[in-house]
């Protein structure tokens, strides 16, 4: 694996390898000295063309826990607003001898262009591109689900996949890179995926995706899924006629207190996931976000572990051969 661009082309073996490595990384984060020397002397650039404090600090924390040098390059605007072109930015980073570039970009495909253009030979990690993919988010979700399963079945998570788990993803699938990365990875790992959304927020042409689609959240929740993942509703969708009003959206597709109560009443195993940041009161109620079912904070912690694993795996294996052991 030279780059991590999308989950659509991530093999089962590579996915498990990342998740197993992430479990090892998680143990580092629980120690008092949260640092490994594995990437000492390597340079990781966080190239963010779009604001995302959460994702950036997660990658920054991951790289620092592996002792890499981290450069944060905020290139907001990019060539859209007559700034520096992606090419020039990439070549600038190359001249600074970056070993890995973590790129967040508003344009779908920008990480793939960076990786295939020949402008740069660093490892490229997609930290979210347009409405396309956000592979580390899907990996951290998979890690979270795997740990839920391991705890439930009382066995170690190493080597485990998600076969037979039912994951419900609710909300704005049309504009969501989280949904697009999750559908492929969850499928690769054997989970059953159901999307629930108003028809206006489902893309035309998704009929070949390996998933089921429903417009009825209550009906799907009554199937006692293993997890329900609420997607963030972007504020700019509110006025674009995708649905009549926020209230109507919440009533039909929000994880309301009533829906949480219904899960509790039937003692459903369902955990509640959200990639953050949450719109409390819109797609998710406080009762849901703060319920014992919520894995929101575990997802954040697992995000660091998964990103450590990805950086470690991408940057290991070449000349300086980083090692996971302390020395």
């Amino acid at each position, binding site marked *: 694996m030279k780059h991590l661009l999308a989950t659509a082309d991530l093999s089962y073996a590579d996915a498990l390898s990342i998740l197993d490595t992430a479990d090892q990384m998680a143990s580092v984060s629980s120690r008092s000295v949260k640092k490994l020397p594995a990437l000492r002397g390597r340079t990781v650039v966080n190239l963010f063309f779009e604001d995302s404090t959460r994702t950036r600090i997660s990658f920054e924390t991951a790289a620092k826990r592996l002792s890499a040098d981290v450069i944060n390059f905020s290139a907001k605007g990019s060539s*859209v607003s007559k700034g520096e072109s992606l090419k020039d930015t990439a070549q600038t980073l190359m001249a600074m001898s970056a070993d890995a570039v973590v790129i967040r970009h508003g344009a779908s495909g920008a990480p793939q262009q960076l990786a*295939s253009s020949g402008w740069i030979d660093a490892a490229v990690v997609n930290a979210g591109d347009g409405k396309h993919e956000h592979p580390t988010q899907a990996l951290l979700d998979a890690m979270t689900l795997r740990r839920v399963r391991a705890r439930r079945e009382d066995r170690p998570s190493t080597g485990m996949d998600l076969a037979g788990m039912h994951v419900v993803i609710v909300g704005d699938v049309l504009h969501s890179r989280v949904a697009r990365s999750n559908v492929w990875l969850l499928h690769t790992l054997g989970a059953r995926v159901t999307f629930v959304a108003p028809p206006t927020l489902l893309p035309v*042409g998704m009929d070949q995706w390996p998933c089921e689609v429903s417009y009825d959240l209550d009906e799907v929740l009554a199937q006692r899924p293993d997890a329900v993942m609420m997607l963030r509703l972007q504020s700019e969708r509110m006025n674009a006629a995708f649905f009549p009003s926020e209230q109507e959206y919440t009533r039909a597709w929000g994880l309301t207190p009533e829906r949480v109560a219904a899960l509790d009443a039937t003692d459903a195993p369902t955990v509640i996931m959200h990639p953050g940041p949450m719109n409390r009161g819109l797609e998710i109620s406080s009762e849901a976000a703060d319920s014992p079912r919520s894995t929101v904070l575990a997802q954040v912690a697992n995000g660091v572990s998964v990103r450590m694993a990805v950086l470690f795996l991408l940057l290991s294996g070449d000349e300086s051969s980083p090692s996971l052991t302390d020395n």
Partner: protein
Amino acid sequence: MSSFLISSVSPEGSDPVDLLIADGTIVAAGAPGSVAAPAGATVVDATGLIALPGLVDMHTHLRQPGHEDAETVETGTRAAAKGGYTAVCAMANSNPVADTAGVVEQVWQLGRDAGWADVHPVGAVTVGLEGKQLSEIRAMAESRARVRMFSDDGKCVHDPVLMRRALEYVKSFDGLVAQHAQEPRLTEGAQMNEGVVSAELGLTGWPAVAEEAIIARDVLLTRHVNSRLHICHLSTKGSVEIVRWAKERGINVTAEVTPHHLLLTEELVRTFDPVYKVNPPLRTNEDVMALRAAVVDGTVDVIGTDHAPHTLEDKESEWSCAAMGMTGLETALSVVQKTLVDTGMIDWATVAKIASRRPSEILGLPDQGGALEAGAAANITLWDPAGETPVNPQTHVSKGRNSPYRGMPLPGRVSATFYRGHPVVLDGQLTTPLPA
């Protein structure tokens, strides 16, 4: 003026003949060896070559005035000659827009001065292509450029009242309106065809219905006001069905398809290489097949290149910021051969029709698209259908390097282009422009 004897050439794929050209006209045609060459005539051995009436492109972006970094009338018409074209229609989306007699006369004059091919400026339907107010259409029609075709190409004349008025207005001089069919609200921020691939890639979709809805509206408007409509770059199966429906009812509509929509599909967008970004977007294989069938059954009248050169920097960027468009003049006939002739769908006589004769009829060009016989203007393309060469955009004479066929082997090559009796291309190479 010099004379040329083109020997043993196959006119539109039929039995070989000799053609004698003098003073810009075909003066004699006959069985090989039967036409006597006058003293001093240059003999062009055209054994194995196919003669076509010089190609006529109804859809070219020459970029001048205003975007001379991307193309000029000079470089664009050189590319036309190299591709076998003897006439091109220069779309109006220059800067300033070709919405006045002054601009169309300028472009027309630049074409005359260049001398590589006839340049027929297309007039903008609305001032500044803004879709608000009709341009001075009649002034352009009466200018030296004698504009007959009006289009806001690049933008759709989406206001139904304005479209109706334009269709009515051009009737006074037997003009036509060429519509870029794209419903603007349905295509806000659109990046590629809406369907399976856009759903996966997370690129905003350009739905087929946004093209089809405008075509349906416009053929009905055309019937209502009894005018003449041309549809630019038809790209969907549904559009074919609507145009076919309209033609069956006698509505005066003609339709164009581009070479790239006959060959390439949306699958190429998976590369995120902006060389494949074009408007209308590359569609599905089903659409490609429907467009080919539409050429065969006459629903599609003409091949138009939509030659759209761009600078490197306008294409070397993120997909969503990259300019839309592909070059096409120098590869068009090869793509036509590959998709329609080599597949056995049409013969060379039909190629002559769709790439030269019908466009000339639609535009009312007396000297183009004629029969290859004595008395016709000597606008002739000699095509060598043998062999395949990988496309190398670096060798193109257009300024544009944005060819989607880079590296793709394409059949055939232009051996010679006679423009008004003068060989602007000979042995596959540009020679000299038509002497003033």
